[in-house]
């Protein structure tokens, strides 16, 4: 038990003293997660919108493929991206492997299907009269989509949060394409893995607490967003 208490004590010391290593790792993790989530949502949300609002041949097959991608082993995605970005791979010339951009690419591949599948489900759940009413009032395609998105905004916000959570918590793919290089590609999750394997339980706990704090903050912000809407409706 002593090592647990000792680990927790050291974690609090590191956090209270704003340890530069911990701060650096947390900042890189946040940067990578925010950029990857933004890109994943830029790709996934419009894709989900199209899948949820239009009927075309092969739509069900695309939805099935998308849902399958949600359960794709992340190390396989890491391996795939590694193959594409490796020096001898098709995008090797870009020199992205073992940079934080490589982590972003892998995380976008992971999170975009999540954003797309959840968006498709969200817009499919919107009352079909929303689209019809918007059209009768003379709205063009963009405004009509905006009306649908506005009705589904909590579900869409949840899709963004889930995508963010997914990229923030990823280890396997990040380790493969980032290489866990100190000050360059070491994120919170890979640092926790390394610290644990090196027996530095205190550092691992400190980094884990930061990870938890970020997740908690994001969820509190979502609750506040929903609460503000409820207050407006009351």
């Amino acid at each position, binding site marked *: 038990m002593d090592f647990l208490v000792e680990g927790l004590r050291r974690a609090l010391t590191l956090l209270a003293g704003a340890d530069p290593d911990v701060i650096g790792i947390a900042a890189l993790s946040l940067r990578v997660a925010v950029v990857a989530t933004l890109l994943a949502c830029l790709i996934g949300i419009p894709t989900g919108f199209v899948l949820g609002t239009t009927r075309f041949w092969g739509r069900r097959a695309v939805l099935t493929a998308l849902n399958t991608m949600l359960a794709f082993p992340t190390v396989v995605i890491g391996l795939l991206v590694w193959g594409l970005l490796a020096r001898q791979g098709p995008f090797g010339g870009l020199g992205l492997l073992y940079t934080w951009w490589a982590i972003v690419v892998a995380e976008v591949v992971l999170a975009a299907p999540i954003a797309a599948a959840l968006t498709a489900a969200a817009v499919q759940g919107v*009352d079909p*009269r*929303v689209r*019809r*009413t*918007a*059209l*009768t*009032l*003379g*709205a*063009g*395609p963009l*405004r009509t989509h905006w*009306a649908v998105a*506005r*009705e589904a905004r909590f579900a869409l916000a949840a899709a963004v949060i889930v995508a963010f959570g997914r990229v923030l918590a990823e280890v396997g793919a990040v380790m493969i394409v980032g290489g866990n290089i100190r000050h360059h590609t070491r994120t919170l999750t890979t640092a926790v893995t390394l610290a644990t394997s090196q027996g530095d339980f205190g550092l691992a706990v400190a980094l884990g607490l930061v990870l938890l704090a970020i997740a908690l903050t994001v969820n509190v912000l979502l609750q506040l967003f929903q609460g503000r809407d409820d207050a*407006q*409706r009351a």
Partner: protein
Amino acid sequence: MLSARDLRVTRGSRAVLDVSRVELVAGTVTAILGPNGAGKSTLLSVLAFLEAPDAGVLTLDGQEVRTRGEQRAARQRVTLVDQAPLAFRGTVVENLQWPHRARGGSGEVASTATALGIEGLLSRDARTLSGGELQRLALARALLCRPAVLLLDEPTSAGDRTASDAVEAAITQARAAGVAVALASHRLGEAYRWSDRVLGLADGKLDTVTPENLFRVVLPTGTGVKAVACGALTVHIVTDRSGAAVLAVPPEDIVLSAAPLSSSARNTFPGRVTGIVEEGAGRLSVTVDAGTILVARVTPSALRELGLTVGSPVVLSVKATAVRVL
């Protein structure tokens, strides 16, 4: 203004709409009268360019509307208020500002809200409105689109009196602004009260048969019993209304007899039977030419007792209080 030719809409192998011609004219109100499931909502969806027909030609202001782009442009000029309208998330005033954002410059929110009696609801959450209030909001929102064609699908389905008054206000405002209005309804009274022209729709087909015993008249001023010319007949009625109206002589309230009755009925018309049709459910429809065609509804036993056949002379009696003013 808006016309449709040879419209056909099918669901599976069944034709739910098969209409040869419909024309909506600026400044007039056309009622589309028919029972539930007759195809009224489908017709309005097609006329609102929300649903493409399987066949047929739609023309707006003489221009054929065919491509998606043309349909999008047409929707800027045609608006539809659905039977179960929807309010967008937000307040009533935000909903009323919607047409302005969607179409650009449009009408005055405050005056339209006042005309439809929702000026006191502007800051309310639109999702908390009652059925009647929602109907009025939808009508106001549609008027604020400044449409050239206004389509109303069962606008009094919410069932309250204020909603009915709001529909009347909306139709009056639209007609005065030169809008072509089409109103789908299954209620005979409101169809005749509000429209200039009534089209019957049954099983997806336009029906030219005029509902029975309806007369477009001009009522004289004054109160109490009035004598009104209905074609070749003079019909006595009891009403305080004056001006243009539609009189309905309910077929169930017409009494048939072989000779004039000594009764309280103020209207007695001799005529000759021109048709007898079995309607089912123990009822017969008897058409009588009394100078003007009238239809009476009787039981088979009553007809047998009177010994009426096609060509028989007959006397029709109707109380003045039974004649309805629509």
